[in-house]
């Protein structure tokens, strides 16, 4: 009996309390349920634990660079500067909310399957990194609102499971138009922006006047390589901020380096951090998502898999480029509007504008052709600037981190849940 108690204690207070081993346990159980061979179970479990530790190491690299930029913007503009980067904010959240995030994710999977089984919303959400990001967002928002322990996990998991079927369902009418009706759904937490783009497209244009009739050069395709696009943006951002801040301010952070070297190395350090974090996320997600999908196929065989946004890109490659450019334009214009109305300065990041702008472009094109792609993506760009700014107050201490969640649905879900939770707390 004593032995049993101490084993339970070990499990609850040590294994489950350590996010890395908790995630490993999730992968372990998933692989066992699928009756995978021993060697696969071992490699899957160990890799997801390793992935979590790598994620933490990447966060430290990234913070080194972010801790220069944030105060520099503060000194130069007297305003909080925020660059929405999901990987960064999630890695930061793991330092204090790792266990909560992992548990919400695990039970959120189960909640997703229950919703798919019991309601007409038959989707299994397979974009693993977005599930992870949403779990981190919910743990931050709910704990800021005062929830702890079991209620925090239960509320987080139910909400997570629900949004995992809700957003694919919202995107579905547009996805039918885009794909011509296949058996895949869209599982991406930028859906608010895509639906907005689709609706705008309906209002302004004609789907017959398609973006795919234009010849577009392929020069922007290097942006698909997210490490490169992050690095370029961050070098430019560091350079512009240092330039505006002036020598007196940036030299406090640059250790005597020239403005060029300083911006270059800080931008590269930032993207190195993101790359390390992504390597970790990839190791975790690469093991857990296939296990989840396997279980989902057994329990809810008639559900549609909801997949990451690049699956839409092949249907309208020109709309992808147009969408990115107009979303980024929306982000730039919003940046100049946010300060005067007293919100944080949201600096448009390449990665969210590329992926969600491109998808918004595809949605807008499906309903409104060229005009729809341009204006729809532009609206997406405005949304992913204002929503992150409005999200900051409900994130608690994470709201002061100089980085935040990028995609539209994180903003929508975080703001709604944050204010509802405050009513009850």
């Amino acid at each position, binding site marked *: 009996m004593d032995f049993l108690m101490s084993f339970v204690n070990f499990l609850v207070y040590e294994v489950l309390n350590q996010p890395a081993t908790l995630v490993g346990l999730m992968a372990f159980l998933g692989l066992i349920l699928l009756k995978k061979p021993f060697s696969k179970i071992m490699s899957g479990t160990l890799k997801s634990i390793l992935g979590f530790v790598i994620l933490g190491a990447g966060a430290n690299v990234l913070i080194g660079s972010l801790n220069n930029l944030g105060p520099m913007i503060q000194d130069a503009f007297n305003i909080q500067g925020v660059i929405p980067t999901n990987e960064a904010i999630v890695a930061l959240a793991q330092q204090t909310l790792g266990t909560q995030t992992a548990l919400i994710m695990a039970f959120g999977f189960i909640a997703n399957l229950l919703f798919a089984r019991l309601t007409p919303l038959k989707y299994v959400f397979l974009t693993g990194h977005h599930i992870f990001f949403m779990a981190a967002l919910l743990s931050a928002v709910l704990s800021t609102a005062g929830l702890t322990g079991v209620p925090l996990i239960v509320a987080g998991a139910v909400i997570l499971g629900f949004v995992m079927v809700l957003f694919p369902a919202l995107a579905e009418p547009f996805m039918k138009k885009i794909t011509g009706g296949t058996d895949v759904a869209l599982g991406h937490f930028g859906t608010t922006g895509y639906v907005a783009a689709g609706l705008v497209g309906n209002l302004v244009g004609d789907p017959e006047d398609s973006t795919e009739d234009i010849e577009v050069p392929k020069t922007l395709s290097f942006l698909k*390589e997210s490490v490169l696009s992050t690095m370029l943006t961050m070098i430019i951002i560091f350079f512009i901020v240092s330039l505006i801040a002036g020598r007196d301010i940036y030299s406090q952070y640059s250790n005597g380096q020239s403005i060029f070297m300083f911006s270059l190395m800080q931008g590269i350090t930032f993207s190195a951090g993101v790359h390390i974090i992504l390597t970790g996320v990839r190791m975790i997600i690469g093991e857990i998502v296939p296990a989840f999908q396997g279980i989902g196929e057994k329990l809810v065989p008639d559900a549609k898999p909801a997949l990451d946004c690049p699956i839409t890109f092949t249907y309208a490659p020109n709309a992808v480029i147009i969408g990115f450019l107009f979303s980024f334009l929306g982000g730039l214009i919003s940046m100049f509007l946010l300060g005067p109305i007293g919100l944080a300065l949201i600096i448009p990041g390449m990665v969210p504008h590329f992926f969600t702008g491109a998808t918004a472009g595809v949605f807008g094109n499906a309903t409104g052709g060229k005009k729809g792609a341009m204006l729809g993506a532009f609206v997406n760009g405005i949304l992913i600037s204002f929503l992150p700014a409005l999200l900051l107050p409900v994130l608690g201490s994470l709201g002061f981190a100089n980085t935040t969640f990028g995609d539209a649905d994180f903003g929508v879900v975080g703001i709604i849940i944050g204010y509802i939770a405050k009513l009850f707390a």
Partner: protein
Amino acid sequence: MRVLAVCGMGLGSSLVLKMNIEKIMEQEGIEGSVEVKDLSSIQGEQADYIFASEEIGEKIEHPAEVISVKNMTDKNEIREKVLAAYKKL
């Protein structure tokens, strides 16, 4: 047969591709492994084949043969390409 499934982030379409390829290999009794990679980290990786979407496939330079997939979710297309690749080995 060792396969790399590649996309821009190494999280989205490449993972879908990996799951589809693994399922086909299992059904056809093909021994081997499929690993997910992002575009930036495939250099120096050993593989027999690299599977990717058409836009990504164009950008890959690697000693292993690159096989472009038109539609990530079309299991028949992927099955044909996996089987053809396996026969060539």
